[in-house]
């Protein structure tokens, strides 16, 4: 589904001809870009692993400090930590020694595994690093030894050992005749296939250890899945115990699993350090169970840290990552911050005037990172112009901006950009992509009508809630409702619910169509609950546009009942994301209205949050949550407070899109330089510096056209349209294709390819897009050669048209030398020179 996750863009260093090499060398040393930084960062890291010997202060933290044990087989782990003077966590679990005050009541293994022996109370004494800690244990065992439970003992093992994963028996057709529900979604079905299928061949109740169900994963007989179970491991003992007791079904009324928590939730450690995790399940009778050894652990960013099968996290690189534990299809997440020790770190004063800066700086302070300085005026002008309006400023705008002495000129610039036509072009393009306005699925008139509607919405700054209401409320043909195009794009209600959820909630539901979502607790009930909001929508041919290709009219069949959940075969009533089912009649009303009301409510937990995240990502190299349209508990925000604050701010502003943009681009965070300092060189996630990214296809082409003064002709669109104004991707343009303009076939930000490849580099070096433009007789270069008599002036004009800044003295000197090497061939020199400037990474990136 997610074909291309967004990554920080790195353009390939372009190879240059001899004439350009020197200039490029000068320019690139001026501007250290991300790639070089990343490399330096790695060097710095290699030398720093385990540099700090963690002297600890204060007390041991022992988790849990109190424990009530009510089950004879369920032991409990202890996690022992302490803190360094610099506030980082040191895991002492492995070094600690443990002793029980009364081994007749509880015993404890050398690794800190506590087991109940008999009723009573006792203390577990913990000693580590000369410090002491205690766990108070109360043992209250039931009179009879509880039976093993299929639900609570066997099912978690099937997940832990991977039996029910998608590549194995969790595959929709099973493997080798044995099918389990994917990741344990359907315990009843799994019980039946284990105990009942093929004359009960998998379980032998009177010879338990001979059960195929055990000999296969133990590797005692042929098993394509290999050895999944260690003899006498906890997992093996649970499975064997259940078979020994007759492989029985659970008695109804037993306590059920309710929630999952992880300890520690937030860890600050150094590279090379470790931290043991502890995962606790809470059951409906209030009992707690240590399920660390039955949980499945995954690390979100593997280069930062690794986690073992048993939940021991090993930090490797500076940075941060989430570590998720999965038990019973529920996730708990611990945040890991891997930091270099920095005793001399002085926190940056936390600003209070801008909500963005406040939370970004707070986060950076907690990470011992100082932000980069602010970008200079020329840099800001180019950056904000490109991001807000998709086009570079022209030299006279640069001139005026640099000359302006008003301290509030950046604020004034932002307000001016809001009023430009290019702003409307830029943001109606984004919406057009996202809502898939394209002649592939829509008629020509529908595409233009929807495009006009979007332009008007952007130009009048329509509040986002109203925007969504109108997009989702469309009905009829082009003449009645331009926004009905949203539905006309969909193949069916599946398409509609997936697009709606992805665009307006930032959530990907496709997985849950066929099976429970693997990374979030969305089920088929949730999926078909959404389906039932949209399955009254249908399209038919628009009778008023006979013979027009793709002319569709959106109709609502009020009689259509709820959708059917294929797993249960039952009708699924409409259900909002999160589980609430509104009481709606099965027919006679347009059920979309209930959905729209829920979506655009101020209390909706997804709508504003996902839009904030999405808009943020248009101004930075990543979202606060990334990928931006994949919000889920296992993909936590890099800065939750920032996201929360911006969300609240957007709602308070009445869903004012421009207010949100203004808050973002006015912040110091947005205005940081892309030059790193020694404390933020590793950080490419927390917005401590500006991380350059490649210009989007349309912007790149429009900037190229503006710099060279040679327009691009598109077949398939009205003459004079800029790349940003194109109605859709159904036009002939190798350039736009090559640089990743989305085809509008998906509601995913990932459809736009922001990556760099060799073909792009070759196209810039050898392709006609630049060569023919710099040498055009009526182009910018030819004009400047005529109007600028002095070489110095010519060089400056070429710089300002291409890179939107004046050359440095050093660059100026090199350029003069370069021009003199061409003798009287000034025209040729100017062409080569501009070609080199346009081939620089500085031109191709917003930085």
């Amino acid at each position: 589904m997610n074909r291309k996750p967004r990554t920080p863009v790195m353009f390939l260093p372009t190879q240059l001809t001899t004439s350009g090499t020197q200039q490029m060398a000068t320019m690139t040393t001026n501007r250290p870009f991300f790639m070089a930084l990343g490399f330096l960062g790695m060097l710095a890291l290699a030398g720093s692993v385990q540099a700090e010997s963690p002297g600890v202060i204060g007390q041991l933290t022992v988790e849990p400090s109190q424990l009530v044990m009510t089950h004879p087989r369920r032991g409990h782990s202890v996690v022992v930590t302490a803190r360094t003077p610099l506030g980082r966590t040191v895991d002492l679990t492995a070094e600690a020694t443990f002793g029980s005050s009364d081994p007749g009541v509880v015993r404890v293994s050398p690794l800190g595994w506590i087991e109940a022996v008999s009723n009573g109370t006792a203390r577990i004494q913990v000693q580590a690093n000369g410090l002491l800690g205690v766990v108070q244990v109360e043992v209250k065992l039931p009179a009879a030894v509880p039976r093993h439970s299929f639900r609570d003992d066997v099912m978690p093992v099937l997940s832990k050992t991977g039996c029910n994963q998608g590549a194995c028996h969790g595959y929709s057709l099973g493997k080798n005749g044995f099918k389990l529900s994917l990741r344990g979604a359907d315990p009843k079905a799994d019980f039946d296939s284990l105990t009942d299928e093929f004359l009960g061949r998998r379980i032998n109740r009177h010879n338990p250890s001979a059960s195929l169900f055990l000999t296969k994963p133990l590797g005692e007989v042929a098993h394509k899945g290999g050895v999944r179970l260690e003899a006498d491991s906890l997992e093996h003992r649970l499975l064997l115990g259940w078979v020994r007791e007759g492989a029985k079904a659970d008695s109804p009324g037993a306590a059920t699993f309710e929630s999952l928590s992880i300890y520690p939730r937030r860890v600050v450690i150094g590279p090379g350090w470790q931290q043991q995790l502890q995962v606790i399940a809470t059951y409906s009778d209030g009992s707690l169970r240590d399920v660390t050894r039955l949980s499945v652990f995954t690390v979100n960013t593997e280069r930062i840290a690794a986690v073992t099968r048993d939940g021991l996290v090993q930090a490797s690189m500076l940075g941060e990552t989430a570590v998720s534990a999965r038990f019973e299809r529920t996730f708990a997440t611990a945040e890991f911050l891997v930091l270099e020790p920095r005793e001399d770190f002085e926190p940056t004063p936390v600003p209070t005037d801008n909500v963005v800066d406040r939370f970004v700086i707070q986060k950076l302070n907690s990470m011992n990172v100082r932000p980069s300085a602010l970008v200079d005026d020329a840099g800001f002008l180019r950056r904000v112009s490109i991001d807000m309006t998709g086009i570079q400023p022209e030299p006279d705008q640069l001139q005026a901006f640099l000359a302006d002495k008003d301290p509030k000129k950046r604020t004034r610039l932002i307000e001016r950009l809001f009023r430009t036509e290019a702003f409307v072009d830029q943001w109606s393009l984004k919406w057009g992509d996202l809502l898939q306005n394209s002649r592939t699925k829509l008629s020509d008139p529908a595409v233009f009508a929807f495009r006009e509607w979007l332009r008007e919405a952007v130009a009048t700054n329509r509040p986002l809630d109203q925007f969504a209401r109108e997009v989702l409320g469309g009905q009829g043909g082009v003449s009645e409702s331009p926004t009905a195009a949203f539905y006309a794009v969909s193949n069916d209600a599946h398409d509609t619910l997936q697009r709606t959820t992805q665009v307006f909630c930032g959530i990907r539901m496709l997985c849950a169509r066929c099976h429970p979502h693997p990374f979030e607790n969305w089920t088929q009930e949730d999926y078909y609950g959404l389906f039932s909001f949209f399955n009254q929508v249908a399209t038919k041919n628009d009778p008023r546009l006979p013979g027009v290709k793709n002319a569709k009219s959106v109709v609502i069949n009020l009689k259509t009942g709820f959708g059917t959940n294929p797993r249960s075969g039952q009708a699924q009533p409409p259900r909002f994301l999160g589980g609430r089912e509104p009481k709606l009649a099965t027919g006679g009303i347009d059920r979309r209205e209930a959905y729209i009301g829920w979506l655009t409510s101020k209390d909706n937990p997804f709508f504003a949050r996902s839009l904030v995240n999405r808009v943020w990502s248009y101004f930075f190299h990543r979202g606060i949550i990334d990928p931006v349209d994949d919000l889920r508990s296992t993909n936590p925000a890099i800065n939750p407070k920032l996201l929360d604050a911006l969300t609240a701010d957007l709602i308070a502003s009445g869903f004012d899109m421009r207010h949100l943009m203004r808050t973002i681009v006015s912040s110091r965070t947005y205005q940081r330089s892309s030059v790193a300092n020694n404390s933020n060189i590793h950080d490419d996630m927390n917005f401590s510096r500006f991380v350059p990214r490649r210009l989007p296809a349309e912007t790149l082409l429009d900037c190229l056209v503006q710099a060279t003064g040679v327009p691009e002709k598109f077949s398939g669109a009205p003459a004079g349209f800029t790349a940003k104004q194109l109605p859709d991707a159904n036009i002939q343009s190798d350039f736009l294709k090559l640089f990743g303009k989305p085809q509008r076939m998906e509601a995913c930000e990932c459809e736009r390819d922001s990556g760099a490849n060799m073909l792009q580099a070759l196209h810039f070096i050898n392709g006609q897009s630049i060569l023919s433009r710099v040498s055009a007789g009526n182009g910018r270069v030819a004009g400047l050669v005529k109007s600028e008599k002095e070489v110095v002036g010519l060089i400056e004009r070429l710089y300002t048209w291409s890179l939107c800044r004046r050359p440095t003295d050093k660059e100026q000197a090199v350029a003069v030398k370069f021009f003199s090497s061409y003798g009287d061939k000034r025209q040729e020199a100017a062409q080569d020179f501009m070609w080199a400037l346009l081939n620089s990474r500085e031109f191709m990136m917003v930085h």
Partner: protein
Amino acid sequence: MRAARSILVALVTVAASPAGVSADDVISFRRHVWPILKRHCYGCHSGEKPEGKLSLATAASIRSGGDTGPLLVPGKPGRSLLIQMISGEEPSMPPKGRPLSRAKIDVLKRWILQGGKIDSVAPVAEPKVVIPVEYTHAPAMTAVAFSPDGQRIACACRSEVVVVTTSGTGIPLRLPTRSDLLTHVEFSADGKMLLAAGGTPSRFGEVCVFSVADGKRVLARRVSGDTLFRGGFAPDGKRVALGGADGAVYVIPLDEKSAVRRIELHSDWVVDVAWTPDGKKLITAGRDKATKVASVQTGKLLRTVDSSPERVSSVVTDGVFAVSAGKSRALIGYQLDVALQNISVTGAGNGAKPITRRNQYAKNFEGQPGEVIDIAISGNRKAIAVAGAASEVRVYTVADRKRTATVKNVRVPVYCVALNRNASLLAVGSRDGYLEVFRLPKAERTLSRIPVPMKKTVGSR
């Protein structure tokens, strides 16, 4: 503090690694080599269809190697295929997951250098079959059959056969086998012999014949690498045909020596086989969802008469119709003469070109209330009983597909059913271990018992 942990880790690594053997030790196959092969290789290179035809199941098969030749050149690790496959930058084996550690490869190299002897003939211990004197959990009844005179009933109770009288009197005769799971029991036409077939899952299939008079085992033959499934005596009584997990029908002569015939027909387990009364054709039901007809004489497929949307569990035939059913709940009769009209098998076989269409020969019975697990046919081949996940067993006349009796409230799921010669008695075996006998057509229950002895103190399921 960190150093201490590193040492601890190092110690653990050494202890767990087979490299713990020191340089001069003699490498033992059983103690050093086999654990490595079992962990990293055995999963795929064993079983019914070992990858690359290399099986590590026996010493002989390890020695003979697979498709690409012998595994070892004794004394020359570098020239041995085993070492070549697992070493190098990107070793070919294992195909997925991490390559073997250098220490493990080193053990294998040294083993080959020392001659590559295999000092243990059966590297994988065969699990003992346990037949308790008294059971704690009643074993599911997996197969059931009437004697030709209807006086006795043989029940397969997991690993043993228990023969009880239909009246329920007398002491049951217990016949233990060495198979973990029996899937089929059947009396010979003269009632003197009792066939029990099955095997141990993922290990072997086995056929046993007992003399009914004294309970002595007169024959035991092992075939296949997994249990055998259902099937039956040939009309001549000299052979049995049983389904195999490798997609083949096993035709097994009932003596110690004559060769076993394998007829490959399905792409998955053959779960049931039925002989036509003339002994010329075999009808087979597969987990691959197909129902097929094959010629006994040539061993060729005559026709795949049906492909169900779900797996098929059972098949019977009266010679005119074949009847099969399974998970899809559809009970369908196939008129054989129409289905096989003008079928001629040419060339390498399985190339039959049928001329009739399915709707010309497939005749639907009424739909079934649940997954069908077993179909029984009466001795006179006129009636069938159909049973499975639903709580009723239905009896039909084959010729007109009419229901003649319904037995309600049986213990579910039913794993096996049997009819006596004239379909006046029905035996039902269930997962909970019960045998129940009903008089037809009125469905009066005449017997209900667990045939194996149970421990008194423990309640059964």
